[in-house]
């Protein structure tokens, strides 16, 4: 087993991609290693004609993935948009891996991302020694993707400052990157496109300019649609994380996961699962990723301080922490929820008491 903590998608799933290639008879766009149909199959999983089972990478709507993949074949770039914890980066990495066989052409967006990270930089030692030459250029992932006709990925596009964001406009509309210092340019080869991800609940974001927005097709990745889907995701992730962290605790009972997912879904949707009572939603996102971390920290608590079994007391602290993000407003929301929904629900006494103890 390799000692690498986290392998790239194209390496981890190399076998699957090879198997899909064998049965992929559809037409491939230039420089794609799979046809659009095969890319969708790779992401959604399923059984191939050859009998090979492809594991699902994204659990959710097939139509969304179809839109995302179809977009990459058009003139426009793809923007994956959504709440934190809805698998945007995950999807972007896998699409890039399936389309170009390379998910490493990545620009991480931060408030400090500069123009040189998007376009190109200079190796100053060489620049001083030789003056502006091709050899003195520092080639960015974007430039490499253009040259090789691959998919470039930009993470957290909205965290990049607006002026830097706008340098993308030329790349996306003209498909070229001028290098005036050398009086030349890099023209994109066929197959080049960009996948960007962005958060819509983040604070301190830089909204995309209208001009840039028009260069993207937007796909919003939603929170899991059904209860079962969400439990499935939480369970899988918690179990695999537990293995990595080597927690001595027993795997969490489905019952407890179900309760947490119920609470998350109800607060997120603002209505109880039976659809009878409306409730207020807290200011936080209540994403699946947070539910995973609540269960996870509960398991850790149970393992190191409890009897190894996940109980209401173990999850209560994490639960309250993820709901009450704003000490005034969210507290009211949470209290209302506890009093009107949790208190009267059968078999929920323990969780009600455990939460009540923490809040007041």
């Amino acid at each position, binding site marked *: 087993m390799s000692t690498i903590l986290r392998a790239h998608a194209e390496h981890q799933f190399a076998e699957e991609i090879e198997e899909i290639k064998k049965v992929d008879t559809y037409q491939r766009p230039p420089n794609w290693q799979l046809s659009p149909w095969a890319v969708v199959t790779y992401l959604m999983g399923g059984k191939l004609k050859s009998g090979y089972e492809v594991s699902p990478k994204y659990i959710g709507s097939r139509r969304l993935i179809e839109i995302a993949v*179809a977009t990459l074949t*058009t003139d*426009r770039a793809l923007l994956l948009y959504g709440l934190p914890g809805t698998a945007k980066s995950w999807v972007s990495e896998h699409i890039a891996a399936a389309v170009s066989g390379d998910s490493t052409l990545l620009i991480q967006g931060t408030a400090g991302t500069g123009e040189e990270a998007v376009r190109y930089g200079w190796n100053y030692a060489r620049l001083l020694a030789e003056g502006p030459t091709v050899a003195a250029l520092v080639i960015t992932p974007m430039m490499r993707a253009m040259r090789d006709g691959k998919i470039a990925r930009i993470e957290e596009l909205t965290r990049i400052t607006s002026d830097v964001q706008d340098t993308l406009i030329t790349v996306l509309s003209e498909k070229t990157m001028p290098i005036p210092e050398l009086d030349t340019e890099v023209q994109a080869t066929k197959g080049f496109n960009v996948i960007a991800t962005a958060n819509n609940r983040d604070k301190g974001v830089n909204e995309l300019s209208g001009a840039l927005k028009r260069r993207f*097709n*937007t796909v919003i990745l939603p929170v899991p649609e059904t209860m079962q889907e969400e439990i499935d995701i939480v369970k899988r992730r918690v179990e695999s994380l537990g293995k990595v962290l080597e927690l001595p605790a027993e795997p969490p009972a489905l019952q407890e996961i179900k309760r947490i997912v119920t609470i998350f879904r109800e607060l997120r949707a603002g209505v109880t699962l039976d659809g009878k009572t409306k409730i207020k939603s807290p200011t936080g996102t209540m994403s699946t990723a947070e539910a995973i971390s609540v269960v996870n920290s509960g398991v850790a608590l149970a393992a190191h301080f409890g009897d190894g079994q996940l109980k209401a007391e173990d999850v209560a602290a994490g639960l309250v922490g993820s709901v009450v993000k704003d000490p005034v407003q969210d507290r*009211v929301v949470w209290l*209302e929820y506890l009093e*009107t929904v949790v208190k009267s629900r059968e078999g929920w006494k323990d969780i009600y008491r455990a939460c009540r103890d923490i809040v007041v």
Partner: protein
Amino acid sequence: MSIHILGIRHHGPGSARSVKKALQQLQPDIILVEGPPDADVMLHYIGQEGMEPPVALLAYMPDDPQQAVFYPFAQFSPEWQAIAYAQQAAIPVRFMDLPLTHSMAMDKGEKDTPLVDQPADIEEILPSQAETEISHEDFSAKEELETGLIDTPVEHIHRDPLKYLAEAAGYQESELWWEHTFEQRQNTEESFAAIMESMQALREALPETKNKKEPLREAYMRKIIRSAQKEGFLNIAVICGAWHAPALTNLDTKKADEELLKKLPKTKVDFTWIPWTYSRLTFDSGYGAGIHSPGWYQHLWDFPQDTAVSWLAKVAALFRQKNMDTSVAHVIEAVRLADMLALLRNYPRPGLHELNEATQSVICFGDEVLLQLIRDELIVSNKLGQVPGNAPKVPLQHDFEKQQSKCRLQPKADDKVYVLDLRQPTDLDRSKLLHRLSLLDIKWGRQENVSGKGTFKEQWRLRWQPELLIKVIEMGVWGNTIEEATNQFIAHQSKEVQELSKVARLLERTIPAELPGAVDAVMNRINELASMAGDIVQLMQALPPLAYVSRYGNVRKTDLAMLSALVDSLIVRICVGLPNACYSLDEDASASMFAHISEVNNAINLLQQDAQLDLWHHTLLELSAKEHIHGLISGCACRILFDGKALPTEEMASRFSLALSTANEPGYSAAWLEGFLKSSGMILLLDDVLWNILYQWVATLDGEVFKNLLPLLRRTFSTFSPVERRKMGEKAKGLPAGQSTGFAYKHTPGFDASRAEQALPVVKMLLGM
């Protein structure tokens, strides 16, 4: 001699186009269309000036208009196109189905037995009760079948078998499937033969329906075809739901059919045409053979070529109209994405799903909210049809006239005033009717303030205007009786309203109209809004009217259990949210909050529920102890607590002096005192405990402090009337605290209350009370 059977999909533009083409090729000498033959007389209205689809053929029993059936027609309905063709070509056209006079009589007969049959292909039974019954039936049918071969209820397949086939073929849109499978063919007759064949196979494969009416209907259809043959028509075109097509090929069943059709029950049925809307053609409106996207179908009918481009152009135009920048580049990119999606999914060309997805992704920046706009305006669209003025009356009119004579209220052009005593059955009926009409916005009567006391009296001023009749016809969409129409209309309205206080008012208006269904709908809406309302003031405004209704009910014995649960949850929400809502309010906001708190307090006192009262007092205690809360509100809270005896006298006294300490901002103290004493001058005179607190506090002040506080005291006391002030002065001057007269007589030593009371009757008599 030939008979051409064209199996169709009701409301399918593809079917409609094929039927039109087929008729032009066949040149029949008579057309038979699926529909009730007793409505043949209504056919001549089609093609008249002023007749514009969508319209519905409405059949109802004149003596029981709740029993009604609608046959909606849109321009893209194959039946409509067939009838229109017949009229253009001047050949006879007839309906062909089991006459409604039989089938409605059967429905009525079966109402009492538990097994109600399914609505027929293009029927809708409107009364809400019948509707729910049917949906139950659908549901149970589904459950039974899940163990069987297929998971679609047989009845659903019967209603739209072509959709079923399309879905089986992997199409999400049956119109796209129709187009792909049939429209490319040159010979339309061939496609109808193919449909017939597939239906034959489907009928053989599917379990038989439990619907007893179906064999009867098909028998009658054959009967009508035979009689057309007998009359000597040579080239007969039959338009019917695809499902029935195979059953009509073999006409040598005369004997068996006649046996089947013997002794059918009969009832009187009236027909009329009414304007219909596209939204009521949709499945969501509860229409059995409903479609999801009438606006889209209309578009498919209007633009057989370049459907995607013209659709997206429409979308762009709609967005521009709503002031959203949408460029041609957007449309181009959206068309490209839609094409690509269709390719990826192996469709010949993009359908509505692909177009919507492309719109959302390219034009709306992924936002789903704007799609709702497209759905409302384009996909469903709110197109309203028209019927000629000479069409017969709608049932709501009949019911209205019936109610008028029942209540003995005649429409008069001049004003007439009625004072109703709700204890009398006739007057109660009148009041119900008038309340319902006013809810329906049919402004015949205006309620006026009644002189004299008691909740059992109402005064109405009635004046009839001819325009009101139009309103009655308009409201006919909502139901066939006044009661039903009001129920539906209010349920619809309550969904539209966003403000809690407005819904609360609606409830107040609905309760006297005695409409349990509508009341439930309104209460559900209140519940919904209450839990969503971030604004606590809204909740506080909604509480008093609800509390009033819940406490006193009314003379009409409405079931109010649900209301009191609602009031309960409102109070809980108010109590949780109130302390935060009172933070850092300015003068004006505090004054209005003061008024709200007082009203809520009155409401809660009215309800006399200990649990609620405890919770309320607890909240106020928290409120009065908080800092950064305006003095007016703190004072008010203290006062309420004091009145409710939730605060012991000593505690009260210490709070009093705390609030009026000189270290406080003078403004705060003044406001506090104002909040504490507002409009209670008389109470101050009569209640010695309250008086004592004030009195003793003043007595403890030394001269300097008193001088400083004087302006504040003056400000509060100036709100009392001069008489009150004078009396207060006398009281302060005359008696030391705790020894005054009035209600404190119990404290007077040697006073025998029981003896004093014996004298009271005489005193009363003397005073003439």
